[in-house]
């Protein structure tokens, strides 16, 4: 072992190594730092050798985890040293210690550039490497052309060019504009002809970055990548130095296959055939060998080939071959292969046809859930979660429950969340769902978050059939000797509400229920006591005829807690005590809780929001992709027995869903009013459904002071329960209430339609108030301001604005004041984030009181699909490859639309422009056709190019053929339906005398009912 060239450095390292403990090490390091600091202070006396030595010491100290906050300048200054050894140290240490935002780094930019454009290739390499590792935006702006020149010029040797490739990659990431796509794609294609495998390896990484951003420009690289793969897989012209255990550069093979996965498809049949030959050879020809390294390397290539086959959506035969291989892998002894088998099988779930084949391996996957290795268990859990559906939910969830008792603590929370979600999503019947959740709480109470038990309470409350069953179960759990506090909460709640259904059973009289629940009180924390108090009050109410003994017991408890230090407990005790003396009035006040409004499951939201652990993320994302529009609440039977509309119909307008079954037809229910009472008294900010906390608190909040609220409700809006909303979902006219004598001015539906096409105007007006709106849209964000103007000389009171957002919009309304002073206008900003493509519409539930008149209107908000469009011009060169690559459904959809309002082509072009579509004249040779393009923005799709082609019939202007192509199936469908809705005449409300909006010609009668159009729309 040769000692390092720097003796002082070696001495220091061995000193540190000999330290007995961390304290000694710190002392030694501090001493050294002091030493270096003084030496750097009078820099004049330092030789380059000494400087180099100290800089290395700094790096060593930094690596040990000590802060080194000085000497950066010395490190940077070594970059300009004339000799290679010093310069090298300068570059390397600088890239370790500094980051791109460091001022010293900017100072060095000229020196670095001189090295890059200089003639010394070793200096060039050093400079390129440092810029490649830590170069920032300024570097990108001033160095990109030089770096590009180095990369493509054949007069430089491979050792410089390979570094230039990765340096350019860095600069491109810092500022994508440095690569001019038009010019660069040809160069990139030429680069792939390179023979040197080092240059090729780094160029391939550059290509991956470029195509992952914008594959369209790089189609010509595709055949070249296939050629490279052929060259490697046949071992042609591969120098010995680049074969690894007999395998031609496995890393380049993997990278090349990765690059190919960014192209949506391979059109050219020859290229496709060549590639499949290579892939077939890899799939068939990879054998297990003794040598570990060789085995790993060949399987690295094999797994990448599997991923590519999945991506290319090969014929079913090849796919089944892949699943068979993976099935073999998940059963082998070698843990790495087992892990990767499970991981890739999870990815395979995205391929539609193979799910059934994967299900055949369920038993083996369940075995992996008990693997001694947590990494493998996590993969197995993810896969089981991903493959779960109605057919196997019972088996899988029960397996998860069984595993829960032995699972490591690190996994329990995730496990119980996943079990709860699956149980909710795929429950074959609701009693099973209740069983699962109660078991979950029983087995892993500490890991069951509040939202899980809130959810089961919501379910039970909303499904009458379930209530006696849940009560029986809750009662059974209370017999267990030691139960988790969460179980106390949920049992007490359920028995308080529904315990009286059990009155005939032994051990279930009000008195017995009370005493078994009350037994638990000494063991619970303050957060549970309020729930128990409510339960007592309810038991008391249900004990008919009144049991004076029980009454005295419960009253004693109430009066004991009347002086409790906890305000919540105190208030409940006082109120319940007072109320329970009212006799019969108690019945009204403590009546059963009304049904909960249906909302997105907080659990699923939580799972979606949970971006912390990658282990969880993948499958959840996958699941959301698969079922974008399906609602978590939908149980196997979409029609609940008790006649309430299918849950999850809060999506007020149509709920079209590509993935959901056809029988889930849009329900024109408008607002389900079953829970009208609740929206009125919701003490939480109007954005609660967009807010996890609001969602979670929902049940408890209702549970809190229900008495007064319920009373108020009854006083002011008698009989609001079950108020039918207007049947026409498209024109959500204000709900007609008996007390509501205030008539709107103007037509609400028309105002809405006008606002869909412009960004400011009046949304609603009546004799007392005018609601104006002003909106700004940027990408997938929007900011609306509601202007609430009081037209009167007296104040408007009890003003409430609640936003009911569809699931694809995140909306936050700032606080709306309860009172609007006379003649005043208040502004309420509303933030909107578009999560994914959908035509569903957000609704503003607005109410106020003026004198004796209570007004409540439900207004659609113009946060509609076209607001998230940004017109973008495309050239023929861009349009056609893209158009071709999106070859058919579900990415490209076509439909003949009839009953279109007749428009001349220029009128239609104008209309498209107002919808934010860019009409591209000249692209279509046929004069009667119209081609348009635009970019759609949402969180899920990011910026997504949309291409539209309209073929009109000059003989019959009421029909046309429409073709839409985008990179996202949901977007394609939604955009098509959206345009259709706008092209077909807009239905006007019958009583609308107001003039039509300027931008729209008067439409002919509605043809929305045309069965042909509807049928085609469903396809």
């Amino acid at each position, binding site marked *: 072992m040769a000692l390092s060239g720097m003796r002082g450095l070696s001495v220091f390292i061995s000193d540190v190594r000999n330290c007995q403990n961390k304290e000694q090490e710190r002392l030694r390091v501090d001493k050294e730092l002091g030493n270096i600091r003084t030496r750097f202070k009078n820099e004049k006396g330092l030789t380059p050798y000494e400087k180099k030595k100290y800089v290395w010491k700094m790096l060593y100290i930094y690596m040990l985890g000590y802060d080194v906050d000085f000497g950066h300048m010395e490190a940077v200054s070594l970059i300009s040293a004339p000799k290679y050894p010093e310069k090298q140290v300068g570059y390397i240490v600088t890239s370790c210690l500094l980051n791109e935002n460091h001022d010293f780094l900017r100072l060095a930019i000229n020196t670095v550039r001189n090295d890059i454009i200089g003639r010394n290739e070793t200096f060039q390499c050093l400079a390129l490497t440092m810029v*490649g*590792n830590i170069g920032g935006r300024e570097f990108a702006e001033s160095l990109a052309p030089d770096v590009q020149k180095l990369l493509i010029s054949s007069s430089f040797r491979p050792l410089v060019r390979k570094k230039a490739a990765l340096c350019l990659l860095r600069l491109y990431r810092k500022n994508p504009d440095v690569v001019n796509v038009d010019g660069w794609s040809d160069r990139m294609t030429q680069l792939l002809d390179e023979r040197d495998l080092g240059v090729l390896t780094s160029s391939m990484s550059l290509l991956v970055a470029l195509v992952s951003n914008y594959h369209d420009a790089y189609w010509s690289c595709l055949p070249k990548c296939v050629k490279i793969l052929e060259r490697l897989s046949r071992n042609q012209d591969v120098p010995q130095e680049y074969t690894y255990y007999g395998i031609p550069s496995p890393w380049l093979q993997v990278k090349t296959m990765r690059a190919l996965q960014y192209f949506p498809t391979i059109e050219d049949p020859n290229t496709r055939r060549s590639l499949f030959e290579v892939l077939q050879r890899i799939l068939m020809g990879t054998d297990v060998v003794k040598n570990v390294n060789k085995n790993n390397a060949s399987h690295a290539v094999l797994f990448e080939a599997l991923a590519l086959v999945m991506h290319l959506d090969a014929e079913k035969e090849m796919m089944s071959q892949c699943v068979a291989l993976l099935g073999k892998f998940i059963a082998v002894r070698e843990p790495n292969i087992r892990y990767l088998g499970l991981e890739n099988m999870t990815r395979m779930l995205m391929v539609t046809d193979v799910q059934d084949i994967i299900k055949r391996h369920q038993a083996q996957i369940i075995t992996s859930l008990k693997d001694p290795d947590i990494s493998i268990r996590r993969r197995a859990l993810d896969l089981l979660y991903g493959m779960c559906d109605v057919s196997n939910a019972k088996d899988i969830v029960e397996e998860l429950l069984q595993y829960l008792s032995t699972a490591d603590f690190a996994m329990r929370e995730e496990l119980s969340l996943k079990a709860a979600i699956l149980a909710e999503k795929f429950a074959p019947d609701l009693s099973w769902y209740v069983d699962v959740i109660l078991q979950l709480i029983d087995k892993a109470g500490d890991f069951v978050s509040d939202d899980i038990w809130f959810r089961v309470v919501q379910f039970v409350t909303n499904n009458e059939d379930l209530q006696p069953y849940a009560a029986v179960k809750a009662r059974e759990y209370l017999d267990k000797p030691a139960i988790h506090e969460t179980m106390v909460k949920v049992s007490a709640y359920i028995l308080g509400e529904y315990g009286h259904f059990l009155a005939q059973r032994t051990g279930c009289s009000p008195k017995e229920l009370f005493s078994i629940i009350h037994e638990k009180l000494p063991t619970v924390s303050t957060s549970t006591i309020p729930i128990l108090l409510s339960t007592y009050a309810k038991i008391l109410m249900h004990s008919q005829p009144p049991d004076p003994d029980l009454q005295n017991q419960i009253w004693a408890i109430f009066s004991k807690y009347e002086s409790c230090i906890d305000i919540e407990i105190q208030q409940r005790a006082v109120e319940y005590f007072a109320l329970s003396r009212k006799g019969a009035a108690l019945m009204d006040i403590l009546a059963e809780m009304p049904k909960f409004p249906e909302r997105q499951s907080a659990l699923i939201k939580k799972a979606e929001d949970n971006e912390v652990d990658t282990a969880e993320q993948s499958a959840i994302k996958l699941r959301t992709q698969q079922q974008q529009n399906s609602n978590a609440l939908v149980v196997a039977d979409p029609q609940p027995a008790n006649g309430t509309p299918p849950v999850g119909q809060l999506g007020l307008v149509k709920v079209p869903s590509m993935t959901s079954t056809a029988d889930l037809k849009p329900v024109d229910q408008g607002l389900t009013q079953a829970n009208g009472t609740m929206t009125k008294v919701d003490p939480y900010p109007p954005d609660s459904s967009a807010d996890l906390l609001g969602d979670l608190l929902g049940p408890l909040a209702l549970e809190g002071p229900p008495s007064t609220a319920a009373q108020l409700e009854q006083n002011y809006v008698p009989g609001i329960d079950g108020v039918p909303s207007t049947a026409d979902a498209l024109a959500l006219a204000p709900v007609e209430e008996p007390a509501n004598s205030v008539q709107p001015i103007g037509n609400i539906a028309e105002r809405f339609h006008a606002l869909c096409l412009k960004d400011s105007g009046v949304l609603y007006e009546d004799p007392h108030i005018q609601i104006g709106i002003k909106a700004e849209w940027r990408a997938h964000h929007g900011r609306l301001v509601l202007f609430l103007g009081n037209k009167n000389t007296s104040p408007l009171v009890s003003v409430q604005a609640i936003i009911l957002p569809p699931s694809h919009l995140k909306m936050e309304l700032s606080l709306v004041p309860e009172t609007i002073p006379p003649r005043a206008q208040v502004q309420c900003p509303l933030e909107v984030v578009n999560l994914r493509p959908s035509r569903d519409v957000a609704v503003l539930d607005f109410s106020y009181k003026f004198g004796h008149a209570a007004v409540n209107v439900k207004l659609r908000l113009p946060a509609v699909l076209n607001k998230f469009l940004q017109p973008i011009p495309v050239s023929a060169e861009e349009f056609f490859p893209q158009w071709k690559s999106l070859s058919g459904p579900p990415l490209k959809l076509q439909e003949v639309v009839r009953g279109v309002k007749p428009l001349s082509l220029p009128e239609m072009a104008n209309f498209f422009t107002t919808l934010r579509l860019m009409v591209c004249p000249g692209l279509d040779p046929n004069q009667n056709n119209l081609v348009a393009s635009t970019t759609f923005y949402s969180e899920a799709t990011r910026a997504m190019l949309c291409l539209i082609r309209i073929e009109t019939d000059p003989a019959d202007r009421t029909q046309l053929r429409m073709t839409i192509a985008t990179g996202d199936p949901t977007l394609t469908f939604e955009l098509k339906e959206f345009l259709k809705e706008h092209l077909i005449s807009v239905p006007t409300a019958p009583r609308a005398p107001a003039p039509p909006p300027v931008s729209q010609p008067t439409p002919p009668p509605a043809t929305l009912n045309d069965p042909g159009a509807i049928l085609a729309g469903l396809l």
Partner: protein
Amino acid sequence: MGIRFILMVNKQGQTRLAQYYEYLTLEERRALEGEIVRKCLARTEQQCSFVEHRNYKIVYRRYASLFFLVGVDNDENELAILEFIHLLVETMDRHFGNVCELDIMFHLEKAHFMLEEMVMNGCIIETSKTNILAPIQLIDKAT
């Protein structure tokens, strides 16, 4: 972006080399290294070479007393990284002759030079040992 960091840690948990390809503050590094070392060093030979941690996947391999830990993105090819570790070790072997922990410790700069030739900006740049070692030999000759 493929490789996020490369760590070499001995079985006592002392860091022998740390190279990051994304910027983390010193505190973040310390915490991350501590967590990873705790997780990985406790694993047995029969367990797989991949550990999921935060947003990273750690691919690791043990050689005698020294652990090589590579943090990658979630979608990196794990086996390719696993063999890349072995390539790194073989390259060091070729240079040092039967490389051991002390070689890396006392020749930190050489270990850095090699790594610098093999990985840049989180991407693999060179896999030929001759090419990787060429610049080091150049320096050795010069001194």
